[in-house]
């Protein structure tokens, strides 16, 4: 194998001809139609309502940014998404590394656990955390019995609970892309680094981190963006005083019937998400593992 034969996508004449005739698009149409009907149109409708209700103008956006309550919700959202992202990187990296280097029995077992946990019903997993985290839950009882604390820790109905629950739920979305990146690195490179005189720490910072940066970025983007708009876990594990943006939107629509303000909040979330995605594209291409 030579290193020069990097696969270059050569345009296939057959495909190109099909594309000219517009036939290539036909199989995509059903899915495209579905996306337009259930995603694009409702989102556009919501965004329109944000500038049309109760009367045309930007008053909904002005209200959103003028309210300290709403800005605090925005802050909470970023705080939780950021903390969850950092926590999944720190917790996921060792797991992804182990998956890549462990003997096949152990790596398959761990892989199965990660995937199974992703496949388990989200509500079931979140309720399980409620059981674990509540005042009389297993965690608090255990800590009190071994005498570490005298009063139950407030682990639920606040951002701590939301962060713990979401970190757990987001972990696979960090582990999977990171694992793909780490697995593409030849372990002999680390032997070479060691013989070159690099300590474990130097091998990590000078070789491992740069080579896995694209995987970390891909995982972090996925986790951060998903966390920004997450609803179920914050709704169940969070409190009413410290909401996240998705909860606020739901409340505005369901309880206050304020579609205009809800649309404004949704657009703010969408713009922020797109901005982060653009930054990611700028620095890491499409977030693919380096080849």
């Amino acid at each position, binding site marked *: *194998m*030579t*290193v*020069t034969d*990097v696969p270059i996508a050569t345009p296939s004449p057959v495909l190109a001809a099909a594309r000219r005739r517009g036939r290539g698009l036909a199989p995509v149409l059903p899915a495209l139609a579905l996306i337009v009907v259930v995603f694009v149109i409702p989102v556009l409708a919501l965004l329109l309502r944000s500038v049309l209700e109760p009367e045309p103008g930007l008053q909904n956006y002005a209200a959103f940014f003028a309210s300290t309550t709403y800005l605090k919700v925005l802050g909470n959202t970023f705080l939780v998404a950021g903390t969850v992202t950092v926590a999944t990187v720190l917790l996921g990296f060792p797991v992804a590394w182990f998956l890549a280097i462990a003997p096949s029995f152990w790596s398959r077992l761990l892989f199965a656990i990660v995937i199974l946990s992703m496949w388990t019903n989200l509500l079931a997993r979140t309720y399980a955390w409620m059981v674990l985290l509540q005042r009389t839950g297993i965690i608090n009882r255990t800590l009190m019995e071994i005498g570490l604390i005298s009063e139950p820790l407030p682990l639920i109905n606040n951002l701590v609970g939301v962060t713990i629950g979401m970190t757990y739920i987001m972990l696979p979305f960090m582990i999977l892309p990171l694992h793909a990146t780490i697995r593409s690195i*030849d372990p*002999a*490179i680390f*032997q*070479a*680094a*060691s*013989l*070159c*005189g*690099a*300590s474990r720490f*130097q091998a990590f910072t*000078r*070789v491992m981190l*740069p*080579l896995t940066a694209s995987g970390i970025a891909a995982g972090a983007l996925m986790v951060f963006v998903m966390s920004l708009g997450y609803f179920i876990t914050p709704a169940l594990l969070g409190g009413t005083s410290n909401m996240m943006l998705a909860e606020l939107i739901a409340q505005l629509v369901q309880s206050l019937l304020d579609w205009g303000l809800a649309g404004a909040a949704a657009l703010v979330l969408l713009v922020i998400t797109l901005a982060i995605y653009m930054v990611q594209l700028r620095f890491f291409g499409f977030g693919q593992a*380096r080849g």
Partner: protein
Amino acid sequence: MTFLEISNISKTFGKVAAVNDVSLEITQGEFVTFLGPSGSGKSTTLYMIAGFFEPTAGDVRLEGRSILAEPSNKRNIGMVFQRYTLFPHLSVAENVAFPLRVRRRPAGEIARKVEEMLALVRLESFADRMPAQLSGGQQQRVALARALAYNPPLLLMDEPLSALDKKLREEIQDEIRRIHRQTGVTILYVTHDQEEALSLSDRIALFNQGRIEQLGKGRELYDAPRTRFVADFIGHSNFIDCAITRSEGGSADIVLPDGGTLNGISLHGAAVAGARAGLMIRPDRLRFSPLGEGAEPGIDAVLTDATFIGETYHVVLATGWGASVNVRIPASRIRPQDLTMGTHVRLHWEAGDARLFGQ
């Protein structure tokens, strides 16, 4: 003075002894090759010196000091790997600078050294390229520059050319020889390719089943193999089955399958009268003459095939009991009309060219 001393090292994986009681002394500036088939323990031995495997028993001393307690990043040993191990995110110059950077050398020294090393491997103009933009041969030359950048007293090379094609291999072999001469670094080189071993090394350690079967200059291994394995692995050999009728000191008398006898052949390995043995003669040491010209000792045979392969003829003969024997004869020493199929001839050789190996 002994520079590198490997004493009685062994390595077992589970119940398998990958390396079994290997000892070796190497002097400074020497080029020693570990040669052997795959799984013979040659790479495992190298990896123990590098610090990637811990020996089950034994010691490795470099300049009189045991290095086994040190992790590989403290051993100050250079190594070129079989696979391409350049850091893909660093340019050629940054790769060569890497070992100096982690040693926190001053920037001026690093720049000078990188320039010097790239000149050594003749890749000055590639300093800013990324590894992915280099051919396999160029990558291995950069790896060599990186491994020598910190002036290691010892350079390990683990089949560095096995991923390259033949022409490129020969080119880089010349480079390695030149760099060895130029730097005087002590080199331990692992390969399964005997031509590579013969053309590069001062001495060859031939590995078989975790042990060093024979250690010596390439010519010694070829001319005076001590075991049948060595005779078989280095160069081509004919082994003619026979039985020992008398053995005394280092020599024996034998009887061939057709009842013919040969006396006083040098014997290697324990063998008593009655034991089976192999009579080894190199194809280039065998001659044959028309029957009746009275060359002794000899074996009667029939010419069955002759191929001109440039410079030499490769001739195949069949003995009376059906064994086939290969002979190589320089084209200048034989006329094509003497190579008629079916001709009855007598195979003969100089007394010193036949060796007997007990089985």
